[in-house]
């Protein structure tokens, strides 16, 4: 049976082929449009699978099964890709001077398609294949801009992924083939069956390796160090995909493999919850002092990932206990999934908005931005919605899922998990602080620099508003997602969360919230207040500056870096400690790179290519080398071909070339594995 997903994937492939249009704008617009079509098809597939209660089939020959859990994540893929694709149509004009539209077209569509496959395929081999494809295409997109620091970030990303993702995944493939006795029978059900009877050592290895894989991808502390560099490096529409979808695939993997496949594990649950607590604290408090808007958002991605992991951890830890606690655990799992969806929406919207500001002003530096509120009203309101949503202000969607996480945490009866809820509530305030800064530094006040700024094109506005509007819509009508999500929890744990919900109410046992009533009440109260105390305005004046003459208006504001300096000073020990941990992570990457280079040199010795020994010591040295991949000798014919292509297509930069090569190499490696 042909799935709608197949058409979606085909749409993405065509989108990638749009790279053959030589003209920049035509390429980006056409490929974005096809990505848009593909996203809509994905969403139709989601609805189809939801209404049918799970579908199986094959997509281009790959075995696919869409159950409740897959469906949740497929929805995330669809909705964020939809907004991003619409946004890209105009946004990509901003990067016109960089050229290389075809690289973008290929990588962007490959990226979305691979993520759609990651969450739907029904076989570990194909999972690994799509996963690597996702990593590679995202890698290409991250350094697509080819600025020095972007290159560093992308290498950091790639090396980290290689070491903590690819290697464990290949080990897992080996483990799976040992377990099932054949490399060709790695479907999820088969592994599950064999795993059920396997020894604990197998299971532990399984748990541990997968945990590392997904921790890295999700940016969980202490393996989050790549994320705040990698996400801002990409163009904003891609950042939205990275933060909105890609790191969620790690959540999918966690649920699919570490829970659904291997069975729930209380200890692992506590570990996951603990990692979640650490992550949400570190990520958000780091975001608090960030002044680059995209880095800030990237740190928040880390922080919000912590929330999701906390929710899942609560579920994993409590469900095996049974009874009331299992119900609370199911609520935690439900809340975690819900937060994943919500995070995709608001974080997608926020990255798109950061892109809009970048598009309009050319900068993402919060220190230099300001006064856009009166110029870019539509973007401003969208940002406000998304900011309030991520800060968990009712009645936006972020509130509902965070609140359910608190409820699950406080009711868990475990000090550790309750502590998690306390930290979550605290971090919610920190998120608010950070987003008050994020919003007001860009849109508050008046600034002369940006007097001529105009609102971004309609396509971008619509792209933002699809996601920003969803934050409010889902916040007011959360019930529409309850059964959808409950299918997910059912698929994972076999339990439904006992969330009571109807059109105007969502709740758990006697704790409930009536978002519709709330928003109506606020509306009515604002109306009453406004009607009875209608504002009357006098003249317009300059802001009060104590009567001093000629105060420099540009400097008459608190710059984004100094909003919460006192607070940051007071919790300086925290920063010092985590900075240390961060540099430790950096050091690890550094040594891994050294090992890789050493291996490369070893290979080089074997095949006797002319490397200058003294030069190849670090990533930077690798940059400088004309030839910098280790598998050159084995792939010599292909490289030759590509070189010819490079010479034919003049003006392609080295980085692009490398990227392309790496994609091809990765694909070939996967093919080799598959065979």
């Amino acid at each position, binding site marked *: 049976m042909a799935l709608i997903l197949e058409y979606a994937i085909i749409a993405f492939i065509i989108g990638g082929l749009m790279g053959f249009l030589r003209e920049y704008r035509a390429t980006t617009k056409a490929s974005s449009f096809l990505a848009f079509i593909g996203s809509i098809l994905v969403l139709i597939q989601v609805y189809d699978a939801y209404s049918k209660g799970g579908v199986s089939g094959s997509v281009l020959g790959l075995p696919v099964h869409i159950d409740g859990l897959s469906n949740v994540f497929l929805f995330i893929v669809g909705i964020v890709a939809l907004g991003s694709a619409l946004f890209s149509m105009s946004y990509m004009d901003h990067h016109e001077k960089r050229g290389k539209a075809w690289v973008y077209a290929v990588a962007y569509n490959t990226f979305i398609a691979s993520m759609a496959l990651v969450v739907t395929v029904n076989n570990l081999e194909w999972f690994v294949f799509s996963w690597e494809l996702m990593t590679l295409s995202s890698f290409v997109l991250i350094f697509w801009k080819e600025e020095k620091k972007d290159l560093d970030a992308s290498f950091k990303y790639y090396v980290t992924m290689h070491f903590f993702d690819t290697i464990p995944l290949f080990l897992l493939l080996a483990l799976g083939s040992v377990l099932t006795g054949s490399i060709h029978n790695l479907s999820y059900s088969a592994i599950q069956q064999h795993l059920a009877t396997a020894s604990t050592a197998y299971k532990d290895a399984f748990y541990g390796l997968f945990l590392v894989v997904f921790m890295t991808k999700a940016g969980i502390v202490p393996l989050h160090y790549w994320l705040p560099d990698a996400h801002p490096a990409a163009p904003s529409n891609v950042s939205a995909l990275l933060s909105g979808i890609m790191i969620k695939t790690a959540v999918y993997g966690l649920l699919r493999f570490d829970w659904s496949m291997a069975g729930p594990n209380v200890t692992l649950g506590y570990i996951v919850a603990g990692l979640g607590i650490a992550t949400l604290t570190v990520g958000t408090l780091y975001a608090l002092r960030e002044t680059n808007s995209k880095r800030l958002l990237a740190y928040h991605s880390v922080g919000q990932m912590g929330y999701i992991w906390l929710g899942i951890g609560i579920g994993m830890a409590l469900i095996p206990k049974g009874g009331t606690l299992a119900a609370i655990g199911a609520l935690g799992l439900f809340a975690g999934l819900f937060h994943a969806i919500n995070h995709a929406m608001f974080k997608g919207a926020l990255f798109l908005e950061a892109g809009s500001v970048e598009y309009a002003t050319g900068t993402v530096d919060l220190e230099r931005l300001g006064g856009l509120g009166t110029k870019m009203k539509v973007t401003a309101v969208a940002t406000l919605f998304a900011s309030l949503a991520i800060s968990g202000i009712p009645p936006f969607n972020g509130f509902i899922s965070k609140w359910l996480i608190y409820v699950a945490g406080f009711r868990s009866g475990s000090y550790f998990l309750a502590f998690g809820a306390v930290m979550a509530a605290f971090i919610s305030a920190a998120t608010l602080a950070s987003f008050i800064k994020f919003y007001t530094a860009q849109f508050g006040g008046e600034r002369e620099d940006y007097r001529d700024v105009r609102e971004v094109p309609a396509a971008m506005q619509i792209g933002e508003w699809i996601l920003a509007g969803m934050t409010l819509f889902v916040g007011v009508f959360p019930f529409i997602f309850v059964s959808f999500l409950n299918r997910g929890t059912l698929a994972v744990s076999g339990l439904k969360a006992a969330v009571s919900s109807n059109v105007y109410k969502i709740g758990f046992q006697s704790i409930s919230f009536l978002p519709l009533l*709330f928003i109506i009440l606020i509306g009515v109260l604002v109306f009453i207040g406004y009607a009875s105390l209608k504002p009357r*305005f006098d003249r317009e004046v300059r802001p009060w500056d104590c009567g001093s003459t000629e105060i420099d208006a540009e400097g008459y504001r608190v710059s984004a870096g100094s909003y919460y300096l006192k607070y940051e000073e007071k919790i300086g020990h925290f920063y010092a400690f985590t900075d240390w941990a961060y540099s430790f992570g950096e050091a690890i990457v550094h040594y891994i790179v050294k090992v890789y280079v050493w291996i490369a040199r070893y290979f080089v010795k074997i095949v006797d290519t002319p490397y200058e020994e003294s030069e190849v010591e670090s990533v930077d040295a690798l940059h400088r080398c004309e030839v910098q991949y280790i598998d050159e000798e084995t792939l010599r014919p292909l490289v030759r071909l590509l070189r010819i292509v490079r010479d034919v297509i003049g003006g392609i930069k080295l980085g692009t070339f490398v990227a392309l090569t790496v994609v091809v190499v990765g694909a070939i490696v996967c093919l080799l594995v598959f065979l």
Partner: protein
Amino acid sequence: MYESLALKIAGIIVMVLLPPYLDGIARRVKARIQYRRGPPLAQTWYDLRKLFAIPTVLPTKSWMFKAAPYLALASALAAALLLPYGGHVPVNFGYNIIVFFYVVAMVSVFVMLGGFSVQNAFSHLGSAREMTLLLTVEPILAVVYGVFAYNSGSLNLYHIMTHLHLSASLLFAYIILGYALYVESGFVPFDVAEAEQEVIGGPLAEYSGRLLGVFYYAIYIKRFALLWFFVSMVTYPIVGPVHGLAKSVGLFALQLLLTFALYPIIAALEATNARLRIDHIVRTNVKIFFIGLGILAMAFMGW
């Protein structure tokens, strides 16, 4: 049915009319402590009436500047509507302690958004201080949720109020709650956000006339809501489940009485303290947060 309606209406009347009078009481008490005569009790109302009559001077074109006071007022009223008045809740949109505090926090959020919408360093400084204050109070409140949830087995506001059982950790939690509410209300010594001598009114520096009046009104109602929450948390566990008109009215009277009794104490505390600096407050609150974690541990140990 009718009695419920009557009490709800009484509650709404109280929340709308009483807050400025409470401020009037505070002013009288402060005046007495300072050996002054003090203004009439309705002085705050007179002030508000005067402010309402004056048109607002606009320092910016931003729509947020104009909308923020009304949103803040609506949030404050919404928070107050969520509390029980003699056992009856006027509008119940969230049977939930967390919802209440989030809605209260929304008042601060809109104050900040209003303050940040103008190009004025004083507004910005004040707003950033307000946020820092919120940032340090929130974890303390979270600890209190934890203790209450564990103690009563629910996060439902009324379930908590009626199912609390006495323990050492609960008493400590009450103390911490009182502290957190005092801080969140922004009374001296925690009035750093609007410190007149330092940042000339902070987020409200640019507001004038009617919009300023609306903001003040919202802040008075917010303070009232927080106090009323505390009063309810004290009275309900004592009185127990409410049935019948007499008991409802009695409870309502008790709540009112306690409010009137507590406000002078607050005023006295305000009058006998100097304003702290924001770093003092952060330090103190972080300390109290760690103490709170200890109390939470006590609660989970069953003490």
